[in-house]
């Protein structure tokens, strides 16, 4: 059962990612990336990362990709990537197929003890309670710094898009 689910979501993620890279329209790319985000959220949930799976849908698919779509539609540029023809996408697929065998064994090499099943997770593993407990104790300072970073990004984005700087 897990194998079927994994294969399904992995195929959806890879297909969506390739669709994002080779599609000519920016909007098509964005929608393909949203599909990848949902497939990855499912894969996170399969690995007991329940909070992160929910955040993936809310933050990535919900907020960040909507921001991308807003900007794409705001600019409304006709794609000048007319030269992203079939020849170009063929090269992209060739590059993907060529690079993947180089990187995949490196990742597999670093896989810890490749046991048949990961050890049984404790009951609160990956839940809001479990992650929140270490986020607000051991990692309280990075959490606060992240809020400062978000404030800086907010102010920066507003200043950058102002029509007139005085």
């Amino acid at each position: 059962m897990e194998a079927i689910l994994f294969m399904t979501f992995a195929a959806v993620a890879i297909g969506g990612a390739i669709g994002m890279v080779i599609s000519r329209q920016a909007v098509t790319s964005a929608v393909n990336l949203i599909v990848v985000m949902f497939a990855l959220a499912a894969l996170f949930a399969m690995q007991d990362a329940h909070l992160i799976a929910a955040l993936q849908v809310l933050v990535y698919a919900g907020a960040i990709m909507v921001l991308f779509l807003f900007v794409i539609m705001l600019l409304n540029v006709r794609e000048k990537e007319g030269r992203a023809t079939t020849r170009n996408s063929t090269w992209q697929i060739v590059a993907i197929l060529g690079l993947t065998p180089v990187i995949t064994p490196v990742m597999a090499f670093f896989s810890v003890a490749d046991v048949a099943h990961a050890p049984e997770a404790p009951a609160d593993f990956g839940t809001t309670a479990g992650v929140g407990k270490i986020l607000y104790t051991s990692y309280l300072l990075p959490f606060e710094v992240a809020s400062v970073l978000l404030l800086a990004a907010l102010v920066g984005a507003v200043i950058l898009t102002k029509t007139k700087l005085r």
Partner: protein
Amino acid sequence: MVITATFYLALSAILFVIGVVGVLTRRNVIVIMMSVELMLNAGNLAFITFARELNDMTGHVFVFMVMAVAAAEAAVGLAIVLAMFKNRETIDIDQIASLKG
């Protein structure tokens, strides 16, 4: 067939490679930024996989931080794209080469 951590890591590597190819081959700034988001997500998948393998939730905290930074990066990056489009009327990175030596 038993799904081990290696499967997830291989998927993570494949997604990362697709993101790299996107950054290298596309000329549209927005699509390049989306490829960067894809690479960040591939990294997140590796974090989650190792967190599960080692039964250590620190990986989840890392993913949380990556998401916060990705949100900030997208906001500032898209603001820069907007400002650039206002000045140059283009988002093609081949046209934006004024810093080229």
